């Protein structure tokens, strides 16, 4: 008896140690980024163009590029993803087609990001002739983000009680009226949270934009969707591997901006989640 108690203590200590090995580096990484990146942050760093072969100046074009890409991705992925989730959750019967769609979504979420890059290059850049452009990059990121949005939306839709739908149907509402009238309004917080998380992930992706939009260096801002653009993740790649002698300050400053942006999106998402969870009456 004492023996098994002792064993339990030892086992739990090992589990704790493993957890620390997993979690401690996260804290360490964030600390390193903060400590090295904070000194770089200034109004000028955020809002001026890179100078001295990107060793100085700011990151404004990359910031703007990433912003455009997020907006572009959102424009394509959100409507498509939400409609697809509505189909799966509210319309689809349990049959082979539905199963095939589900498998397709699982596979889309598993396709390596660089393969999305190849696909975007071949379909959007070359075949459709968009060239390396914000349009091609956004579409590529959008398809990559779809499974995240579909899955999150589906969860949010299925969390709406079945009885709401029955009430609506029993009053003579059609399926679409039911979806619009009682299902969507009650699923919006969940959809919003999932969508923001999906977009924040897209914002940090590098591989899919490598050949579809990302520019090494552009002194001016893009003016149309057919322009190339700089983007924060790719800019980090360039600063850390392609340009020699970039100051640590500039590198970490850029990293901090990207990570900060993504964390803000994440915080907004979880705030929405907890706010509506508290307000929820059903």
């Amino acid at each position, binding site marked *: 008896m004492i023996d*098994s*108690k002792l064993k*339990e203590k030892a*086992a*739990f200590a090992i589990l*704790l140690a*493993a*957890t620390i*090995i*997993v979690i401690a580096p996260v*804290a360490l*990484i*964030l600390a*390193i*980024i903060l400590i090295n990146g904070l000194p770089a942050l200034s109004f000028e760093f955020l809002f001026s163009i890179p100078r001295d072969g990107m060793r100085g100046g700011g990151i404004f074009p990359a910031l703007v590029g990433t912003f455009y890409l997020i907006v572009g991705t959102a424009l394509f992925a959100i409507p*498509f*993803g939400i*409609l*697809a989730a*509505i*189909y799966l959750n509210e*319309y689809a019967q349990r049959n082979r087609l539905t199963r*095939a*769609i589900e498998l*397709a979504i*699982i*596979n*889309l*979420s*598993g*396709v*390596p*990001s*660089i*393969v*999305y*890059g*190849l*696909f975007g*290059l*071949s*379909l959007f850049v*070359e*075949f459709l002739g968009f060239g390396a452009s914000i349009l091609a990059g956004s579409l590529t990121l959008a398809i990559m983000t*779809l499974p995240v949005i579909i899955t999150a939306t589906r969860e949010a839709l299925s969390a709406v009680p079945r009885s709401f739908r029955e009430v609506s149907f029993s009053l003579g509402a059609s399926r*679409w*009226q039911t979806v619009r009238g009682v299902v969507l309004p009650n699923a919006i917080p969940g959809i919003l949270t999932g969508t923001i998380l999906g977009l*924040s992930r897209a914002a*940090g*992706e*590098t*591989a899919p934009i490598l*050949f579809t939009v990302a520019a090494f260096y552009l002194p001016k801002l893009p003016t149309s969707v057919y322009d190339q653009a700089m983007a924060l*993740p790719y800019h*980090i*790649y360039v600063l*850390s591997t392609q340009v020699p002698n970039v100051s640590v300050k500039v590198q970490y400053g850029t990293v901090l901006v*990207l*990570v900060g942006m993504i*964390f803000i999106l994440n915080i907004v998402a979880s705030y929405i989640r907890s706010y509506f969870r508290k307000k929820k009456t059903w």
Partner: protein
Amino acid sequence: MKRTTEWIIEKLIFISGIGSIVFVALIFFFLLKEGLSLFASVNVFSFLFGVNWYPISEPPQFGILPLILGSLLVTLGAVVIAVPLGIASALYVAEVAPKWLSEILKSGIELLAAIPSIVLGFIGIATLAPFLKNVFNLPSGLTALAGSIMLAFMAMPTIVSIIEDSINSVPRSYREGSLALGATRWQTIYRVILPAASSGILAAIMLGIGRVIGETMAVLMITGNAAILPTSILQPVRTLTATIAAEMGEAVSGSEHYFALFAIGIVLFVISFIINLVADFFMNRNKKRNKKK
């Protein structure tokens, strides 16, 4: 009027619904369209099993065996590190830690999942590589081992969260039954909970592998990028994904090299397809098994 709008909306919903199938098909089709052109001049066998990847020498050689082995080596290393750590932390978070601590740990893991791979690659170059260089006294820290460590870390959120879910889906009655018979919590965990969650754990491992094999930017930056047959984990290697990322920029559209990179894309697509199907199989088994009781 109302009926027409509704009709249009419902058609849009249906089209979006089957969109995912269309996209998977499109991806596969466009990879094939470009990738298969390679096999007009190179045979499949010497592509898959050729030991030399010299895409721009004269004549070029397109053997991806070193890349496949590079990916495998890095993945294997990552799995060896990630699986025990992942299972242990998931157990700690789900079964051992008090609620407040487990909430904190979970948000820590969520934070990790939110950090982009490019950032982890960058930090890896700045911290992990010099560290390994010193410890093992290497000419460069950019090695397969560095990649494995990094990737193990990156796969952790996937592995931990799925294992945690499957542990949580083990019916409460199993736990209570075991504890009522006088077993300690630890005995309950490894005799009852681990076996009951085994399908979920397998699914987590598969999805972790999928994440690791497909990871691009961090490995590109940290594994040293040498397209040679790896003999040791302390050597630089080059993975399938990193090859595409590193070389597509230079490959001329429509050249053999360009096609070869797409052919690598096909290999990656097929691997991820299989891994996800297997993971889905385990996932469904886990659901079914724990629903019955």
